[in-house]
């Protein structure tokens, strides 16, 4: 039986993922369609009201889930592709490889991810693919450190010693004995990476360096709404709640009992 936190996480994430997939059918309006009905209060027609261009806030929040999910999962995959091999090599090979890898990992962990992402994205330009790669790039050290610790522990176990005794090379042992035992832990950790990536990417958008408009994106929507907080608070609060819920969902999904 999974932990209660994991179940709550799933209860948030599954509907959200469905929402992202089924956005065109769920959204009552075209998220980019402007109208003269500016700053409408919530009504039967516009459940969450409309924004400064007369666009339906609910439809934009629904469509916004797509960008968030894409960035989150994409960044998690990138971080695993970089972090897992480095962690495995450091943990299993040890010595100089480990020392160098840890030095690098600690360097990146100490750096502020958001600041790093801001700098790189300002240089490469804020496209969806750039944001995914950059966020994966800033979150790999966590994955690497976790994998390294686990690989380090497994290296000492009897079955690895046996594999070494029958003449198994490092690459073969890592692939056949270490990785299968690290895999589950990585999968759990990736949920946390997704949470962090969505958190950071929405902060980037909020600061003005996110997915360029008119693609609906939660952080950008919150930013747009700030100036109208007194007349149309839902413009900011609705997408803000959506980001927070999504981050919470993935965070709970990645819950590990220490």
């Amino acid at each position, binding site marked *: 039986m999974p932990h209660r936190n994991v179940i709550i996480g799933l209860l948030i994430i599954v509907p959200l993922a469905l929402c992202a997939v089924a956005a065109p059918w769920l959204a009552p309006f075209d998220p980019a369609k402007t109208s003269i009905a500016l700053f409408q209060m919530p009504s039967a027609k516009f459940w969450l009201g409309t924004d400064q261009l007369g666009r339906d806030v609910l439809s934009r929040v629904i469509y916004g889930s797509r960008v968030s999910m894409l960035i989150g999962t994409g960044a998690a995959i990138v971080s695993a592709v970089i972090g897992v091999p480095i962690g495995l090599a450091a943990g299993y090979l040890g010595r100089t490889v480990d020392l160098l890898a840890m*030095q690098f990992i*600690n*360097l990146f*962990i*100490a*750096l*502020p*991810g*958001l*600041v790093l992402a*801001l*700098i*790189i994205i*300002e*240089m490469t330009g804020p496209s969806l693919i750039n944001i995914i790669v950059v966020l994966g790039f800033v979150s790999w050290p966590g994955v690497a450190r976790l994998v390294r610790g686990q690989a380090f522990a497994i290296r000492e176990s009897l079955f690895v010693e046996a594999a070494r005794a029958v003449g198994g090379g490092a690459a073969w042992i890592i692939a056949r004995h270490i990785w299968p035992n690290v895999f589950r832990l990585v999968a759990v950790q990736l949920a946390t990476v997704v*949470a962090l990536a969505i*958190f950071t990417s*929405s*902060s980037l958008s*909020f*600061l*003005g*360096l996110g997915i360029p408009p008119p693609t609906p994106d939660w*952080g950008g929507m*919150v*930013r747009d709404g*700030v100036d109208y*907080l*007194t007349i149309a*608070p839902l413009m*900011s*609060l609705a997408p*803000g*709640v959506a*980001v*927070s819920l999504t*981050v*919470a969902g993935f*965070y709970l999904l990645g819950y590990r009992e*220490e």
Partner: protein
Amino acid sequence: MLSVVVRRVLLGLPNIVLISLLLFFSVAGALGNPATLMLGLDATPERIAELEHQFGFDRPLLVQYLEWMAHAFQGDFGRSYSTGQRVADILVPRLLPSVELAVLGIVVATTFAVLLSSLTVARRVIRPIVTLLSLIGITVPNFMLGITLIYVFSVALGWLPTSGWSSWSSGIGLHFLHRILPVTTLAAYYFASFGLVYRAEYRATQRRLYIQVARAKGLSETSVSFRHILPNSILPVITQIGSSLGQLAAGSLVTETVFSIPGIGTLFTSALLGRDFPVFLAVGMITIVSVMVMNLLADVLYVVANPQIRLD
């Protein structure tokens, strides 16, 4: 102990140098040709070459880096592209609000995390509240928390100012009124993360023999918790503060933007978006290097404060 400290410093210093190099090179790379940027598109190649030579942009990057560093240590960071002011003059007045925000945030987060987790009276009521607040602190992004607080306390209730950062001269009352929301926003995440670390250590300490002795000699639960468990569980929180400083810089960046605080964070974003590279380079370098230096200090402090580590 000395050898451990020396080893930490020797491992830490190359990182600081490496990151400052990386930052300088990537900013220089993104800059393209500053001479073209200054002269505009219709500049003649001769004029560009002349300006490049005049400012030294035609020399190897490593030489430029060393020169920049040498000047930086004397407080000279060049001049802003957009205003022509000396970067140091723009930077210095912005340091105070940022440092104040960060220090208050850390102090508030640590105090509340440690006190609320140590309370033994009414624990059944307090624990779920702490858990909920922690979840909020970890999962609600700073900008959302800030805007929600502004909406509730400034727009709806009208109790607190929405933004700005009144100076000390405008009176202590107003000063602190302006700080309540930003500090809460920044502290929320650290309240959660410090609390998590503290409670884990607290549970471990609770099982120690000397705690049983303290109970056995008839001390009240409150006194056991605050006088015996707390001092013996606080060390990991100090380490956590040290390793959170990078995140803290990022958090202040967003928080300063939400509340329009004239600090380093807002300067950084505006310089980045406005491509004012001398300002951006100075702010980036100072932030990142000071974060790493303080990390190192926290590491060293931990060694000094913990006799168990001193031995090996």
